């Protein structure tokens, strides 16, 4: 890469990045530690040793392990099945399997209660309901369903980068059957990606909040994150404040303990992989009967875990009252009329505005770091940013609250700061990935043709980067739109986002209105998602580039 910016601008950019990272992440985390030290009077062991706290921590670790153990095999298997070019309905399944990504996680959790819990869809139609849904097993199951697409995306990226089709063809033509190839070639090559996906799922589950809150909290099943939420929103006394801070520190330490060795171990192996080319990941044709069975299993899985719950949610939002059968005679728009109050409309406006501002700023920040990262001095910033991806949102929110709460408590600005800190990696990874794939000779050729540094970037680099920029914006926009972990801790009167309103409505037990709000929120996410997805797709296919959106890049960041 030739130098693209004069020295002065370079120094200013580095300073800007350093200031933002320091203010949004480093300072709040230090302040968190400082407050913990002060409030506990230096006696950390006493705070961390309390029995309740221990139970919540144990629940979090067991839950994260169990979710990882189940989600990783399912996600990898899905990726292996879906790369078969002759799978019936492959194009449809490839989109369908990602639906849980687009649906906010607490909506997914809530939709399961509408489908399978008492008075849910199966109860009112077949008289069957599952009492265990509200409790640890239900939390585990829905978290698995929620994590599978993430593992799937990481595995797809790994397959594209490592298991090139010729490696498998060479094995087949050396006399190995399809199954032997899987065991001796494909899976060993996929191992780094699988390990990375496992670490990612584990730490993200440690930090997950919404699903344990919706399904676990009502049954008295506490995790670290729900406990912090309870401490801060219900507690209000100094003891629970101290406990929240202690848990937040515990959470970030636990995460660091997993991520640091994993990154040291896996980082080089993942980075040495050649650039992903999803089109090369096509596998050999196989037996049609086996493909049909695979398609049927996939269809069954998606129907039970995603389609039926979401359908039940939509039905619940249209069905007049709880307990009446969800038949057309009982349909109506009452719940929607009930929830479409000025307060909801304001929250909707706030959510969209916040997401637009956050996404736009994030793309700017992400691009800045991605460009800086191409020089040695900028790599530290890149690594720091990537680590914020696994920084638990709850910890971040608590840290920001105690650092800036004095001035910004309950304001949208504080939520915006939290989004910027947490989602920076979401913007950074896709842009950095696209920059890496941009052949340096293209920029050199522009410079050698007489273009100045900025002209070269504008005329040659911007167009190929457009899908990544748009994709990064989309990912940030969607994530900000259905974010609830941090906003539920940081909102105040007059700064509720729509997601917070849905969560509160659910906690109040207003089933029909919650369903209606969930449907509204999902539509709010799904409509722009599909529009922008189509735009990104068109941009990419016109350039002959890989059609995948930036999500795999984000997923690989772990």
């Amino acid at each position, binding site marked *: 890469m030739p130098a693209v910016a004069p020295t002065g601008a370079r120094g200013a950019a580095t300073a800007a990045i350093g200031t933002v990272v320091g203010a949004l992440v480093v300072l709040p985390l230090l302040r968190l530690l400082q407050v913990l030290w002060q409030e506990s009077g230096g006696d950390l062991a006493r705070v961390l040793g309390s029995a309740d706290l221990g139970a919540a921590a144990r629940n979090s670790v067991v839950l994260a392990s169990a979710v990882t153990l189940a989600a990783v095999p399912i996600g990898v298997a899905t990726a292996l099945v879906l790369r078969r070019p002759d799978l019936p309905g492959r194009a449809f399944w490839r989109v369908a399997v990602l639906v849980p990504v687009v649906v906010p996680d607490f909506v997914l959790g809530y939709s399961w209660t509408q489908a399978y819990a008492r008075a849910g869809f199966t109860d009112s139609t077949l008289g069957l309901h599952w009492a265990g849904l509200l409790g640890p097993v239900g939390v585990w199951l829905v978290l698995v369903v929620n994590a599978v697409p993430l593992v799937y995306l990481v595995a797809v990226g790994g397959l594209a980068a490592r298991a090139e089709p*010729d490696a498998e063809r060479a094995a087949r*033509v*050396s006399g190995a059957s399809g199954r032997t190839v899987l065991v*001796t070639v494909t899976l060993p090559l996929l191992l780094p990606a699988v390990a990375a996906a496992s670490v990612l799922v584990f730490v993200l589950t440690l930090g997950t909040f919404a699903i344990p809150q919706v399904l676990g909290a009502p049954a008295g099943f506490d995790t670290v994150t729900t406990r912090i939420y309870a401490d801060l929103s219900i507690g209000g006394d100094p003891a629970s404040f101290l406990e929240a801070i202690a848990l937040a520190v515990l959470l970030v330490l636990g995460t660091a303990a997993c991520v640091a060795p994993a990154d040291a171990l896996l980082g080089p192996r993942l980075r040495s992989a050649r650039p992903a080319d999803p089109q090369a990941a096509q596998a*050999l044709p196989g037996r049609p009967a086996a493909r049909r069975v695979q398609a049927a299993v996939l269809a069954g899985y998606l129907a039970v875990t995603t389609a039926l719950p979401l359908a039940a949610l939509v039905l619940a939002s249209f069905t007049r009252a709880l307990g009446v059968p969800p038949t057309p005679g009982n349909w109506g728009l009452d719940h929607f009329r009930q929830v479409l109050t000025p307060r909801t409309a304001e929250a909707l406006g706030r959510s969209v505005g916040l997401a637009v501002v956050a996404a736009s700023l994030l793309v700017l920040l992400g691009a800045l770091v991605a460009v800086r990262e191409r020089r040695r001095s900028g790599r530290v910033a890149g690594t720091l940013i990537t680590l914020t991806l696994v920084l638990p949102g709850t910890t971040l929110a608590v840290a920001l609250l105690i650092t800036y709460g004095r001035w910004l408590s309950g304001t949208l600005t504080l939520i915006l700061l939290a989004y910027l800190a947490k989602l920076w990696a979401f913007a950074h990874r896709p842009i950095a990935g696209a920059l890496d794939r941009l052949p340096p000779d293209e920029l050199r050729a522009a410079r050698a043709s007489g273009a100045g540094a900025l002209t070269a970037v504008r005329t040659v680099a911007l167009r190929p980067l457009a899908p990544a920029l748009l994709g990064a914006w989309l990912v940030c926009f969607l994530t900000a739109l259905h974010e609830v972990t941090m906003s539920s801790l940081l909102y105040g009167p007059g700064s509720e986002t729509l997601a917070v309103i849905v969560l509160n409505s659910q906690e109040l037990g207003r089933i029909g209105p919650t369903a209606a709000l969930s449907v509204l929120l999902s539509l709010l996410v799904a409509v722009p998602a599909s529009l922008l997805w189509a735009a990104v797709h068109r941009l990419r296919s016109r350039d002959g580039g890989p059609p995948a959106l930036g999500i795999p890049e984000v997923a690989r960041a772990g």
Partner: protein
Amino acid sequence: MPAEPALEITGLVVEYDGTTALRGVSLSVAPGEVLALLGPSGSGKSTLLHAVAGFLVPRAGTVRLGGRTVVGDVPSVPPERRDLAVVFQNYALWPHLSAVDTVAYPVRRRGAGRARARAEARELLGLLRIAHLADRRPAELSGGEQQRVGLGRALARRPSLYLFDEPTAHLDTHVRTVFLEELVARQRDSGAAALYATHDAEEALGLADRVALLRDGHLLQVGTPQQVYGEPVDLFAARLTGPASVIDAPAGTGRLLVRPGWARLGGPLEGRLRTVRFRGPHSDHLLDTPLGEVLIREPGPPVHEIGTCTSWALVHGWPIAS
């Protein structure tokens, strides 16, 4: 009883997402024979090899290996049950396996134990003069070394037919010649037939018993190297197989194909030397003549100045439709 062809292809049609990559190709390779597939990129060479190997299922046509139908009126036979081996253009080595384990891989698949397979693999690596690299992984090998390992893996399969998919395309020129000699020697020793895809005319003419010219998914011409070089069916085939000039026939009508060695300086015809290129063992002279542009190859360094009038003689010409 005459031996069955090692490979027999009839009416092969392959389509990729709506575009036709092969349009009814028929070919046969005798046991022990080397057939070169010569064509520009995108002509369907790799597609043809992939269809023979079983990496894709053709839309129509049959493939028979040693008399056994593997594509046609039977369910398509998977690659592992076809009696053939492939050397890939991009080596296709497995990043997680050492050289010896890579070469042992096909032996293991035949049911041999780990120790025996490794012993056989080490023997092959010795034969290819890379025994000292046995424990290295692909990332620690040069391109030429990687391709030797790839060749070793193919040899370990002990097939009746080798498929070479431009195996030298990614090798440096000096490594290339040595590797090619190695490859041909090992393949001839094994007695197996080979289908060798390349876009390099010299390579194809130099190593094959017969050459098949491929253009846009169909066969232009199949013949001995001398036939396809000396008697190309059309101008495209002529250009594919080597440098060629096309001039008006000096006596009479029509156009003539003239290879660089088919004319010499000095003789009854007149011309003016436009450019001359010293190529080491010989020099290429490009002449403007009343009949058209002619390229003449003479041994040794150039003797005439550019721009001088030179006489020349036509030794041989091949009538061609332009």
